[in-house]
């Protein structure tokens, strides 16, 4: 191999790793933003968000298998999970809001465990896979380089979603009202914003994001089993802490940082530590340096 070729293959390699890291980061972001929003608004650690993610993955696969269309699977997931998210708020959190914040959190853990077992009983321990060959969808050639199409789809989906979210919260009346309620609920209410509707909006949007992430992870793994939400759930919790609890921008930054640390860390110390261990070492180190998180705003 000539030195120019070698250089090119090295460059491709680090780009590959960056794409991988950004893919991880985008997945975490789509998952963690919902958590950050709920925390910002209600001061609840919404652990059951992992069950929403899993539900999104299951609905995507099951509807895709029933209709033969992966796109319809995603549409169904985006329609079903917001209803589920809003139901969680209405039936689980709202009645418990008058208690200390750890009470709804424990209820949330309970719901996650319940949902995991429900998936197990309903769809089996082995998990479900797409019937059609998703593998055909997975590979594309880009300028002579073969890349995993699902990874690219995850990055594009996240970019479109967060851009849309940004426009929504800055350019629309509902979006502005929402942001106002998250940062100053009492003042927003005095301007006539209904805080309860904002809460529903919050759960609906956060759940839809988690569902898209769940569906994409289902495609990437071609396997949805009852434990699918488990790893992302505890990582997303760590991410919102690192992002500066309740901050959406901080959460996005923290997600990408963690994704990249995992992608590159696996290569440099992957022989001794696996990806999850690397992620948590990095989180501990970062929180020691910046206990208030990336955004630097103490929200508590």
């Amino acid at each position, binding site marked *: 191999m000539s030195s120019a070729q070698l250089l090119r293959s090295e460059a491709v*390699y680090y780009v590959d790793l960056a794409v991988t890291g950004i893919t991880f980061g985008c997945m975490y972001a789509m998952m963690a933003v919902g958590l950050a929003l709920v925390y910002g608004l209600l001061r609840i650690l919404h652990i059951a968000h992992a069950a929403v993610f899993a539900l999104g993955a299951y609905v995507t696969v099951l509807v895709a298998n029933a209709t033969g269309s992966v796109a319809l699977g995603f549409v169904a997931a985006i329609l079903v999970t917001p209803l589920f998210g809003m139901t969680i708020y209405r039936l689980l959190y709202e009645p418990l809001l008058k208690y200390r914040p750890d009470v709804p959190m424990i209820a949330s853990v309970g719901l996650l465990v319940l949902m995991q077992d429900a998936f197990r009983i309903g769809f089996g321990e082995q998990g479900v896979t797409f019937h059609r060959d998703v*593998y055909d969808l997975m590979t594309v050639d880009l300028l002579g380089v*073969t890349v995993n199409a699902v990874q690219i789809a995850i990055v594009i989906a996240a970019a479109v979603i967060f851009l849309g979210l940004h426009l929504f919260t800055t350019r629309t009346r509902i979006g502005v009202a929402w942001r106002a309620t998250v940062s100053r609920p009492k003042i927003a209410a005095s301007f006539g914003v209904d805080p309860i509707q904002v809460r529903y909006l919050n759960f609906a949007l956060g759940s839809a994001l988690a569902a898209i992430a769940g569906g994409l*992870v289902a495609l990437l793994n*071609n396997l949805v089993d009852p434990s699918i939400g488990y790893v992302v759930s505890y990582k997303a919790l760590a991410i919102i802490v690192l992002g500066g609890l309740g901050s959406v921008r901080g959460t996005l930054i923290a997600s990408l940082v963690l994704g990249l640390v995992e992608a590159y860390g*696996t290569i440099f110390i992957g022989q001794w530590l696996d990806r*999850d261990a690397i992620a948590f070492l990095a989180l501990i180190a970062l929180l020691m340096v910046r206990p208030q998180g990336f955004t630097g705003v103490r929200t508590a």
Partner: protein
Amino acid sequence: MLHRKWKTSTRPMNLLMGVAAVALSLAMAQPARAEIKIGFQAPLTGFAATDGKSAEIAAEMAIENINNAGGVIGEKLRLIAYDDQAKSDQAIFTANKLIGEDGVKLVVNGSYSASGRAAAPIFQNAGVTTIVAYGVHPDITLAGDHIFRLVHLGPPQGRATALFVAKDLKLKNVSTITMDNDYGQATMDGFLEASPKYGIKVINKYSYSLKDRQFGSIVASVKRDNPDGIYATGYFFTAGPLVAQLRAAGIKAPIIGSQAFDSQKFIEIAGPAAEGTYIVDSLDRDRNDAALQKFFAEFTKRAGYPPESVASVVYSAVKLMADGIKRAGSADPTKVKDALAETKNFPMLEGTLIGFNSLHEIIMPISVNVIEDGKFKFFAKLGDLDAFAPPEK
């Protein structure tokens, strides 16, 4: 949930048998024509439940077949099954329960490595003769002379893989991907230890956690390594996504997988990407053997899916236990242990078991399968027993 149904329905019978046993011993009559209890544990729930279920169905099938043929030494066998959840603490609990509550003296263990390793010393200390069906951690048989193992342990499987990669596939430069648990590491250790002997160069070593399903960084790195072959240890639920992601990135090098790739679900998850994957120490399903074909048909009918390595080896384990009891002429665990140690050329579903070594590890050739048209196809038989001889102590 067969085992649960069983528990409730036979409780009155237990009581009756207890009364009968007391009465008979008081009368100093002949030994009671009771049943011989075979304890059994496997991960029936939790992440390993797929294998646990297969194991349980296979064990029940073997017991029924033996009983339908008249039982052993004039007595029927009865399976007492518990769920170890693939967790060490649970395995210790169920092992103690089998011994203390159920009074079991003979056990067929369908556990994963870690839980099997935790339970083995408990069975050994209670003098319970145990056949471990497929747990591959070296420490399992080190627990003592009452423990037998029916599967090649991790390091010999890895050494056999090195032999296969070098001699049969003639590959030189290999990247390795290790699953971070007892089984994945032990098997990889054997491969890494033997590979220099066969001139295999390991370009890079990677590892991943059991919970991981996204292998982006490893895939990118393997792509840069540009190896002649890739050796990976894993279970079907990690192997499926791993193989699919390697292939999706355009990596064409042959993939050699460890024994636990051997699952229909692996092919289902990886789809066309599974084609051409070699699985070392995998059940040879093409063998022209009446017992094997009958087992296949019967298991598929019961379970709704074809049997895998785990199912067949558990079936063989129960059959071997029955054979041991027969040769011992008694269900006394020490006598059965001595009979098992003397096993010679026992016909297992996997082929002929030549015998056990001093540590009660199997001496037996290893089969390699390749995935072709979405099916397991026999590819090679590794007969160089010295190359993957189990440790003696």
